């Protein structure tokens, strides 16, 4: 969708919301708005798009309590602000909007979280991603390294960049808006998205990208929107296998889940942000056992998180049930760099080749 189209769609959606409130109040009714319930119990698998989306459960937010009324007031101010940005063709970060809200008196945000949540609400109601509101994420994109070429429009014109030849050893920095990024061509067999920089550097130092024609991507923890969107686009455009390689603990599985299925809090954007074909490479609980990796005991919070995952529809597969139950049984977790305990080459020479061929990727 072109920028102009997206802008028009955004404006229309926002005005619809405001008009509905105006009409409610005009009729002497307390203004209200419907939102899908945003919990893991209200996400459903969409067969068509192969992603998890919010289901039918909605909650009605009526300005009949001070909290809800204030929420609606803030929403009105955000709508007013975005309308202004669209008219003036400006953009800003959420943090900047948070500071701009200083002037909104009662509608001022109490904390950054609140403005984030509110923008998500607006995305859901309007079915327009925040990029359409000209709101930039604060988060930086991650890094990518491998045999692929992209074309990026910048303030200084279109740039064609090859992600091995045209970049430093730290790779190409993914910008925070990848909608306009063009995926030109590639010479890769698969993509490995890694949780930690140490593993990303290890694979680059050991020449894994050249040896296996692999695109390496550093997720930098819980991946930013632009990172997830880029993976989604690589998968859709080039149809390459996407493999997620994280630490072996419940929080890392959530990183995988957010790549593959979308985060619960952005389930409304799943079609754009999720990569349903992404596969979990490791570190698997069975690896801890099979390779006897250095490990830590699961904390109470870990166990709680694992149990929560057992009831999470996104993990409702035999593979995950088996792995999670095994982990609970072992009572252990490991980091991906724990492979170093078996030598610095172990991960590139032994573990990854074995695991990738087991997965049918090489």
């Amino acid at each position, binding site marked *: 969708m072109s920028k102009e189209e997206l802008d028009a769609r955004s404006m229309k959606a926002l005005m619809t919301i*405001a008009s509905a409130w*105006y009409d409610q*109040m005009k009729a002497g009714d*307390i*203004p209200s708005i419907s939102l899908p319930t945003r919990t893991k119990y209200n996400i459903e698998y969409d067969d068509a798009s192969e992603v998890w989306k919010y289901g039918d459960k909605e909650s009605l937010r009526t300005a009949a309590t*001070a909290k809800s*009324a204030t929420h609606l*007031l803030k929403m009105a*101010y955000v709508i*007013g602000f975005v309308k202004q940005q669209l008219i003036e063709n400006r953009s800003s970060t959420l943090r900047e909007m948070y500071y701009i809200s200083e002037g909104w008196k009662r509608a001022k945000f109490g904390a950054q979280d609140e403005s984030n949540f509110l923008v998500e609400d607006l995305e859901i109601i309007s079915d327009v991603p925040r990029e359409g509101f000209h709101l930039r994420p604060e988060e930086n994109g991650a890094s990518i390294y491998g045999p692929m070429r992209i074309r990026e429009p910048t303030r200084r014109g279109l740039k064609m960049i090859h992600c091995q030849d045209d970049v430093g050893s730290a790779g190409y920095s993914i910008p925070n808006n990848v909608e306009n990024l063009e995926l030109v061509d590639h010479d890769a067999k698969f993509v490995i998205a890694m949780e930690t920089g140490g593993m990303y550097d290890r694979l680059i130092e050991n020449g894994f990208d050249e040896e296996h024609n692999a695109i390496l991507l550093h997720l930098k923890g819980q991946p930013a929107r632009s990172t997830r969107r880029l993976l989604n686009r690589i998968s859709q455009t080039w149809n390459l296998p996407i493999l997620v390689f994280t630490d072996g603990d419940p929080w890392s599985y959530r990183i995988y889940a957010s790549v593959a299925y979308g985060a619960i809090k952005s389930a409304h954007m799943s079609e754009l942000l999720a990569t349903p074909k992404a596969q979990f490479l490791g570190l698997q609980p069975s690896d801890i056992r099979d390779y006897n990796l250095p490990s830590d005991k699961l904390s109470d919070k870990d166990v709680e998180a694992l149990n929560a995952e057992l009831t999470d529809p996104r993990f409702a597969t035999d593979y995950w049930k088996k792995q999670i139950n095994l982990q609970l049984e072992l009572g252990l977790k490991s980091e991906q760099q724990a492979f170093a305990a078996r030598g610095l080459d172990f991960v590139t020479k032994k573990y990854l080749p074995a695991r990738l061929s087991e997965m049918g990727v090489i």
Partner: protein
Amino acid sequence: MVLAEELAKQQRSISVAEFFEKNKHLLGFDSPTRGVITTIKEAVDNALDACEEAQVLPDIYISIKKTGPEIFRIIVEDNGPGIVPAQVPFVFGKLLYGSRFHQIRQTRGQQGIGISAAVLYAQLTSGLPTVVISRTGVKEQAHKFGIQIKIETNEPDVISEQPFEWDRIHGTRVQIEFKSTMSAKKKLLEYLRYTSIVNPHARFRVELDDEAFTFERVSQEVIACPVAIQPHPHGIEFGQLKRMAAASDEKLIDFLVNGFSRVGKKTAQEMCDRAGLKVTAKVAGLSADELKNLLAAMQAVAVPAPPTSQCLSPIGEDLIRRGLDKEFQMDFVAARTRPSSVYSGHPFVVEAAIGYGGRLEAEGNATILRFANRVPLMYQQGACAITECIANVNWKSYNISQQGLPLGPVLILVHVASTNVPFTSESKDAIADIPEIEKEIVLALQDLGRELKTFLSRRDRNKLAEDRARAVCAVIPEIAAKVSEIVEKPVVDTTPIEGRLMRKLIAKKWTRDGKVTIEANNYTASDVEISVYDISADNAADADMPPAFSTEMDGQFTKVWKMAIPKQTVWRVTYTGKGGGMLDIRGIEDNKKMVVDLDV
């Protein structure tokens, strides 16, 4: 063996006066400070008891004056029946002498020790005899005595006795002088205030050196004097039965019917049958074993509880509430008089009250008022079963914070009335932990706790609902303003929404284009009849609905409209003017109305 003989020579009898002289703390005379309170307490107890017996409304005068270094003169005077001259020396000059010890009924004083102990204390510390004036009636002469106690024998020592001209027609005045301090003045006044709460029929006038206080009565009704009852068959021990039997010349059945509470012929018959004894047997002739069988039978047969209505005199829920109301103005007060109950054959009644808010301290431990037979307990709060019971109740479940004792603006009163209050010591400061009594106290407190909880949650709920609606009403107009700006339409009017939220009568006044409009929206759930008071410089001569009346003073016109407004409807009036001034609505509760001047 010589030794035993020698030891024998040292053996001798100890007089009760000697015993208590050495054990002053048992009687509450272990410090000069306490002595004052104990003495006044004993004298006031006797005065109240005497007035009760005489069925007069007590009018008690108390005075404390310093007469020398560390020496204080205490006077307590009552309008009771007086004491016949022959008895005065014994009542005041002999420990363990009194009229109430052998009676089974609720009295304040009981053991015949209290006031004589004060006399003893005076004689030990100041060396001065106690002066007693008493007059038993208008036709009788008043007598004045100087009294001490012969300690070695516990017999009265009358220092002086003479007739006396006294303006009281009946009553007693006792004047005791001993070593003391007035450092417990606050405690003393507390004692009198509390006494006045549980004796709402009494008036106390107090003179402390230069200050005078009066605690007025709130009830003009003389309280019934408790009547003595016979012992209850379930509360008697073998030794007592044996003594009663030995002293009796009756037949067994008559002995049982006449000698015990609640035993009728039928019950007596059943007891005899069960004991295998003839109803006609002479009681005095029964052997020890036969008496044992009889006792077992008496305790096995079901007998109703002792008749408490006669022998006990609870204050009553209404008078407790009024008494507390007089001394503490609180937002909530509830009282409970429990049904009477029995421990070890002694009937008792527990009364309790809980107060909340008002002038009570918002912080710290709850105020605890403990009473036994209408007498406040001033010391040893920590050792008292009442305190323990209060601490054992789970106040948190009644929304009262608690740290051992409940905390916050809470007052707890507990009154235990009994024919025999079980004190932990003879100084009568604390009630012993008798399970039967504790159970009753806890039940009363729990019952009151539930009532308090209901009050608190209703109060909180009302306040919360209103606060909530008010908070919403503050936001709605802002939403309206912003949304109208976004959709680029005129600002939408949100007053209907506000009134709806508040469920109130909303009166508004605004001025636009030289026209003043007053509007009253009845959003409440019922029809209302109200008056609108509008005071301003406008005369409202052209009002579309003329005011019921209009008056002028210094250029300010007071216009009053009266009307009924059905629920969910609007009343409106418009006139030419500049607005301003003041608007008020009468005829509806404050919390059901909102008055808004939109021009301000």
